[in-house]
């Protein structure tokens, strides 16, 4: 028997979702351990949101199974939804109520008693720094405030698993960092977090592990650092305003070379001497030598073509 400490919080087995002839998700299997923060990355239409919506009982899977803490999403959706907090991609706060009332009404859907929900709502408003907006109408909130309120609302039932679909899309850097700080502090409380994002920095900053999806499938998964190291190495050279002899020179070095528009990307296998080598041979070449990031992995795996 597996002990509860090793019990995975989320298990998905061969999940598929088909709409007519279109297969949005094509056989996705993964696990998220209790207390882990896992990020789903992928271009638009990769199947991230569909996967997340199946886990949170919004969409019935076409085939395959998914469970949250061993509760099947199809068999017992009410029990699953009691355990999870959901932060959807589009804000769906109730515009007919002010900020605090949004939380109070939401708590009723969970059957939490009025007194408990009131205390908890005030605590959560403080947590997301919205205490002074308690009686403000929703329409008066900025985008960042709305996202923070949606996060507070998702925490109202003290979920063991938090599902965040693009929690910071469209926010300014301050608002984004404010959300990140909250997500990190939830980790220290042992909450499991599954998030989808377009921001590689977000995934690197927050996630223990990332899963890259494209075309309805999982391409690969691992810790952000290990993935970068394995897929692109340590260093990336970007060059512009270059001549053919520079390209010829790079071709002699071990590594991967990519030309995108008027920019050259070189991913050297051996990164230690690259800078010195360039200084000797092409001291005036305009270039940038930087650390490889998750974004490089992402673009390598999913290509540079526009998706929409």
């Amino acid at each position, binding site marked *: 028997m597996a002990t509860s400490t090793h019990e995975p919080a989320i298990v998905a087995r061969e999940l598929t979702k088909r709409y007519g002839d279109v297969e949005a998700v094509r056989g996705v299997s993964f696990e998220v351990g209790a207390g882990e923060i896992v990020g789903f990355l992928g271009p638009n239409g990769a199947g991230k949101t569909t996967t997340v919506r199946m886990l949170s009982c*919004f969409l019935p899977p076409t085939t395959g199974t998914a469970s949250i803490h061993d509760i099947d999403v199809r068999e017992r959706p009410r029990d699953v939804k*009691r355990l999870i907090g959901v932060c959807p991609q589009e804000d*769906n706060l109730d515009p007919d109520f002010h900020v605090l009332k949004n939380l109070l009404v939401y708590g009723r859907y969970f059957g939490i008693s009025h007194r408990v929900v009131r205390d908890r709502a005030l605590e959560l408003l403080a947590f997301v720094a919205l205490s002074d907006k308690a009686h403000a109408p929703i329409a008066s909130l900025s985008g960042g405030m709305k996202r923070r309120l949606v996060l507070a609302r*998702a925490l109202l039932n003290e979920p063991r698993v938090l599902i965040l679909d693009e929690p910071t899309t469209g926010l300014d850097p301050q608002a984004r960092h404010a959300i990140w700080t909250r997500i990190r502090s939830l980790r220290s409380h042992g909450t499991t977090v599954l998030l989808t994002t377009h921001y590689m920095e977000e995934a690197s900053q927050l996630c223990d592990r990332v899963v890259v999806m494209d075309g309805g499938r999982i391409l690969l998964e691992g810790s952000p650092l290990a993935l970068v190291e394995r897929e692109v190495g340590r260093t990336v050279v970007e060059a512009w305003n270059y001549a053919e002899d520079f390209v010829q020179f790079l071709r002699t070095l071990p590594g991967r070379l990519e030309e995108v528009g008027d920019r050259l990307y070189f991913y050297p296998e051996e990164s230690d001497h690259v800078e010195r080598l360039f200084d000797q041979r092409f001291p005036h070449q305009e270039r940038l030598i930087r650390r490889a990031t998750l974004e490089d992995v992402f673009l390598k795996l999913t290509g540079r073509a526009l998706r929409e």
Partner: protein
Amino acid sequence: MSAMRDILRNVSLRSFRVWQRDLDVYLTNWKTEFLPPLSEPILYVFAFGFGLGSLIHSVRYEGRELSYLRFMAPGIVAVAIMFWSYFETTYSSFVRMYYQRTFDAILATPLLVEDVILGELLWGATKAVIASTIMLGVLSLLGLVSWPAGLWVIPLSVVAGVMFSALGLVVTSVTKNISSFNLPMFLMVMPMFMFSGTFFPVSILPRWVFAIAWCLPLTHVSYLVRAAVLGWPRGPLVWSVLYILVLAAVLSALALRLMKRRLIQ
């Protein structure tokens, strides 16, 4: 039977929470919400009762003569039952579903789609009860309601409210955008408003129109409300009661089924 069990399987008392949410919004805006059902009968009474009524001295209805005003007053209560519930589950439910994404937010909680639909259905019926009660009060002050028979309007508006709310949800379930509501409005709701015994007894219509009129749900509701408000329990009331009970049940089941299909893809 198993289809019915399928539909009812996920219905629960939690739908009360959805009803409660809509009620809370209503109470927040109660000043503007109360005014229309209060002023509507007064407008009708002045325009049709006093205006048109001065041209028509009396109406022959169910073998008796009565003033035009007394004839018309119950008709506008029946119309209000239809309008208030039907509009709530068409335009208002559509706004909540499509623009405000309120249903999506609720579906992230232990409530299921069936709870949301049933809650909306019951709230639509509640709006019909509130409107008919207010109107009954106003008409009573004008001496146009016979008591205690008039109290039958309340249970009638519950059943008729469910029926028209369910009809509204069926329409909503197949509506792609909010302007598409105009079509059923002009093909279904306005003809009922005109030909269901609101402004004249359906018995004066040509035979074939008369037959069509008795197929319309509002004709039966008008007929029953008029019997209650006038205090004349005569004629085959039982058939009309059966008609609205059966249609309310059938449309509710259909609304649950179609709205579920609309909300879960």
